[in-house]
């Protein structure tokens, strides 16, 4: 079977979304730092951006990627965690529902862990052809009046035999902490 050429969709995860100078990442970093605490896995890098109105940290090692997104604030695509879970970002390949694969204790809360398939390659522009997919695991964690979306994926349709990203992701979740909102002083 002849397969048409494909394009690497996973590359999006390599390109910083922010572009308007350095102020935005710095502000994003401080906003996230005030809300959460986590340990960057050894050998991973971290970068900050705004994604769909939400401050986001993107940790990566090769094509392994963990995203920490603080959602539900002003300008966010979602007002509540329910909106997120009913939205397109919680859908799998072909608009099917994500699979519930279990629960995980994250920062003292037991949260549902979901799995979905996301495209890593799409056919070239204006062209019909096959796409390839990878798995993403994600969970939604309450954070005061807001919520966090934590996710992990590997940006290739074949797994990485040399590195167990899923194991690192589960360890990351175990050490993840949501900080209590500071009450304003009297």
């Amino acid at each position, binding site marked *: *079977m*002849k*397969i*048409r*050429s*494909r*394009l*690497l*969709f*996973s*590359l*999006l*995860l*390599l*390109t*910083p*979304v922010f*572009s*308007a*100078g350095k102020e935005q990442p710095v502000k994003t970093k401080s906003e996230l730092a005030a809300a959460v605490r986590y340990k960057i896995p050894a050998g991973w890098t971290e970068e900050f951006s705004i*994604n*769909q109105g939400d401050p986001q940290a993107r940790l990566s090692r*090769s*094509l392994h990627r963990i995203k920490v997104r603080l959602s539900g604030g002003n300008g966010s695509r979602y007002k509540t965690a329910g909106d997120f879970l009913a939205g*397109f*970002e919680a*859908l799998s*390949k*072909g*608009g*099917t*529902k994500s699979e519930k694969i279990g629960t995980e204790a994250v920062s003292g809360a037991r949260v549902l862990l979901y799995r979905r398939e*996301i*495209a890593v390659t*799409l*056919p*070239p*522009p*204006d*062209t*019909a*052809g*096959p*796409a*390839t997919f990878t798995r993403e695991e994600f969970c939604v964690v309450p954070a005061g009046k807001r919520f966090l979306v934590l996710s992990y994926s590997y940006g*290739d*349709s*074949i*797994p*990485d*035999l*040399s590195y167990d990203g899923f194991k690192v992701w589960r360890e990351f979740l175990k050490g993840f902490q949501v900080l209590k909102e500071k009450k304003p002083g009297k």
Partner: protein
Amino acid sequence: MDIDIYGRIPYTMLVMKRRPFILALAFMGWVCSVPLLMAEGLDADSAAGGAMFDGTPKYLAKVAAKPFPPAADKKMLATQLRMHMTLEDHGNPEEKAALEAVILRMMDSPTARELAVKFANENARAVVSFSEIPGSTVVMVDGKETLWGTHGFTLLDRTPPVVKINKYYMQHDKDLAVRVLAHEMMGHALEKKRTEGGLGDDRMLNVDEEESARLIGWLVGAELYVKPEDEVWTYLDNPEEWREASKMWSIDYSLTLTTPEMKNPVPVYKARLAAAFKASQQLQQQNEARKTFDRWIDHFITVHKMTPDSFRALRESFDNFVKDLPRVQKLHEDIQAALQNMLTSISSDDGKRFLSELAKDAENPYFTRKDAAITQRRVKLEGLMMRKQNSVANPPPVNGQLSFDDLNRLIENEDKCPFGGLK
């Protein structure tokens, strides 16, 4: 002169022949498409056709105020739109009939009806034909004949723009031809008309051009119940990430900017160049990973005497990657060269003037209106697609074929196996 299958001059040729920064812009996709064939007298035919029509202005004035002209008016609208189009049928009445049918069917879509009125009111024009597009293959997907190849394209350097639809759609998946026509004609040809006499190059440099055209095509498709492609779901999942990802899909797209980015593109291009370089390196790692899996499969066949056929699907996926690798590698190199050339060009005195004009143009209401239209169409598409949830089932796994999960389990168990792992 090197010309690609769609009649476009490669980027490098342009850069060599003309002033670089303008040329980088001029290259922007469809704009710099160079004609392979020139059909003479199309403008004159098209204009004459428009002049012959009687009754359009009155009708247009009546429906222009309505957001979506009623479906009952579809024949009137199709006739009116037809007066702004020249159909090239290559002397084949069947082609003409098929094109007429596509236009009429397009009028079943409220979005297409709305845009048809605008197309006519704004006196836009297009030459439309079915065309054999090299590289098209018909394959079986889920038991259905499916085209793998280019849907269609528009030569925007022509006046009026020339829209080519893959001839496959003349006989099969006719509603896809409708979606392609809406994308090309209402998305690209109409916008060209809107920026005549200014903003043309900046329009093509703005990411809105393609996003807007795609949204129009997808909306028309959704309204006609065309099965959405994977890209539609990917776009709705996260439009910002889709926009970023699209920068690595072609040289044209790699240079596109959002309206805010037009005000200060230098850091954007620098970041993109670094990302393109990193992507090239990762491509090699991905290739190595496939080779390792391939060696594991050899191991299970030779040492464990497993049936070679059970690995067929996995090996096919490796082969596809390997076959496509030279093209993707070349694309990455070309994108890096294009970005580097752009950065060099905009650092010149001419380039600085260009940047200043670009920043000024970013404030043009044309882009503000287009950004707003994109948001509006995205919300509408979200509404339509939400109702389509769960409508597409994943194809069942192929009988007797191992998946990556199966292969991973075999590899994990190998640690306990006395044969001892990969040599």
